[in-house]
């Protein structure tokens, strides 16, 4: 079955060479800077720097980029629209304010997207447990659960058809359709919990969570390139802040 949800080794791209914890550190830096930065110039400069990483993440054609980012662009556009529609009374040009907000939203979310498309979940779990001492029980338990997601999609379809075979369908009644979907979802959930507990037993049987110190077969190494990556993200943020302040566009905001 070629389910589009299949999780596996992400095809390595150039950005995959950067250790996931270095990418996460850079994300923290960018997030902190953008959360306190009002105005258009600073987010715009950060976003421009992020866009140069798209090819390194394997997103080269505009169609690829659009397919991965449309929910993000849509939410940014709606944030901007809300600001234009309701922010008129707060002073300043509502259109400029809306644009600045939209750019901030995109600049905040894009690094997470870059991490997602360039990082194999296994490498992420390895890096988190090796470098940041994240609980192995959490990290590898989550990995095991992720493997079950594509199975759930196939099972949902089977349950739906099995209900039709029992004489249960919604016809054209939207209320019945919602109830049917809820019932199907419940059956699916029961099945998922059962399979999950069987998986937990199998993992226990293989010594998972036995209290012994766990080793890591693949390892996760931090290289000079990872330090450079974090340094570059700090540098970009510094430049963006400086230019923002010098042009008079920057002002401090809290979260909002």
């Amino acid at each position: 079955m070629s389910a589009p949800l299949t999780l596996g080794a992400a095809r390595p791209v150039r950005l995959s060479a950067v250790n996931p914890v270095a990418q996460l550190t850079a994300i923290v830096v960018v997030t902190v800077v953008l959360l306190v930065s009002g105005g258009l110039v600073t987010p715009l400069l950060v976003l421009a720097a992020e866009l140069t990483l798209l090819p390194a993440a394997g997103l080269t054609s505009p169609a690829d980029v659009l397919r991965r980012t449309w929910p993000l662009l849509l939410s940014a556009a709606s944030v901007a629209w809300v600001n234009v529609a309701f922010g008129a009374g707060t002073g300043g040009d509502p259109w400029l304010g809306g644009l600045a907000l939209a750019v901030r939203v995109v600049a905040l979310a894009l690094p997470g997207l870059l991490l997602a498309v360039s990082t194999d979940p296994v490498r992420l779990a390895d890096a988190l447990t090796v470098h940041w001492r994240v609980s192995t029980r959490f990290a590898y338990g989550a990995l095991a659960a992720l493997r079950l997601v594509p199975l759930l999609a196939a099972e949902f379809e089977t349950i739906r058809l099995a209900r039709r075979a029992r004489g249960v369908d919604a016809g054209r009644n939207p209320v019945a359709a919602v109830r049917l979907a809820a019932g199907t979802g419940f059956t699916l959930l029961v099945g998922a919990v059962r399979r999950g507990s069987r998986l937990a037993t199998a993992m226990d049987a293989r010594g998972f969570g036995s209290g012994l110190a766990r080793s890591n077969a693949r390892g996760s190494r931090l290289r000079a390139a990872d330090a450079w990556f974090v340094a570059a993200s700090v540098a970009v943020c510094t430049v963006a802040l400086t230019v923002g302040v010098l042009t008079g566009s920057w002002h401090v905001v809290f979260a909002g």
Partner: protein
Amino acid sequence: MAGPAAVRLTGWGFRYATRKAWAARDVDLRVGPGERVLLTGASGAGKSTLLRALGGLLPLETGDAEGELTVTGSSGTGIVFQDPDAQLVMSRAGDDVAFGLENTGTPPAQIWPAVDAALAAVGFPYGRDRPTAALSGGQKQRLVLAGALAGGPGLLLLDEPTAQLDPPGGDLVRQAVVSALADRRATLVVVDHDVAAWLPLVDRVVELLPGGGTVEHPPGWRPVPLRLPVRRPARADGPPLVTAVAAGFTHRGSTSPALAPVDVVLPAGRTLAVTGPNGTGKSTLALLLAGLRAPTTGRVVAGPALTAGLRRPDREPARWRAAELVTRIGTVFQDPEHQFLTGRVRDELSLGPLRAGSGDADARRRAEELMDRLGLAALAEANPFTLSGGQQRRLSVATALATRPSVLVLDEPTFGQDRETWAELVALLAEQQDDDRALCLVTHDPVVVAALADDELALGAPVGAR
């Protein structure tokens, strides 16, 4: 490093904290180092409980144990369960085998040689980087076995490891067990319903009795042959009820078809068996014939004998309303739990007739009649999800019969069942061959084909499986 383990149980029993009855009792069993033992017994005799206890998976708080259980000389235990998808943890084959070694804190430098040795021992044909999602059921289970063997256990426990696999998949797993244990480096205890397949590979057979106690079968013992229903004489073709004309199916977004175009006729009064290896689209064909999916090429049409009384008789079955479908084509899915919709066996059986527009009294009468005939009367108030596997299977067939459909489509009705349930189901299906009903059975089981089928459609090699 310790060698193969010795197992010794004396008057052993176990009762789960949530149950009144003992799951296993009065078990006496001795297994010497390096021996291979097959544990048999009817469903509910406590085989899986015993295996879990041997694997150390029944901690004190799960229930009460009595008697003695000792495992000596073991350098660890490996366990393989039924469902490979509920055992694989990682997305790549090598990482999954390494998982158990990581858990015991094995230094990374020793892990990869052990992984490669385990993969070679089970005859895994792919490299470490093979995505686990791309494996067949048999290969997945081989990988699970490699993971269980990687730590060099002195005791290997297999709990129905082939019950969810097709015959070639089961063979793959058994070959892997034989080659991995050729040097008797580990003691083997297998629980499986498929006694005949394991018999040549084990040294001894021990049967657990449902009421407690054990019986050791002597060397040369063979299971009693299955009792098959008397075959009724084949009938002449009745009118075609469902016909597939060059019907094929391709999943959305997929490049290779799940089912290559095929012509099928289901005439009244005959039984068709659909056979062939996994991946040839047998279950997909069943969904098309059952009116649950529309083919993406070709057509599936219903004959006039089936469409009588429909508002739009010209429509394909896949476009009928569900209430119209249940009185004409009944379907039994592989997993009965996917089909259960209510909290009581009684309601489960009257649901179909009610949906199809029968009155309350009629639906209730039909439910009573079916429960009596199928021996489910004592379970009328039970929740379908709490029934045993065999009872669930009988109930799912009964729910399909409740609306008296003229066509009955069953996907692997005898899959993974113990011998008793198998015989009950075949007898039940033989009873359905009267009344001019058309049956379509998807099955891997050659004995089912021999016992029931008038015609056989063998689907060919997987499409696009190059």
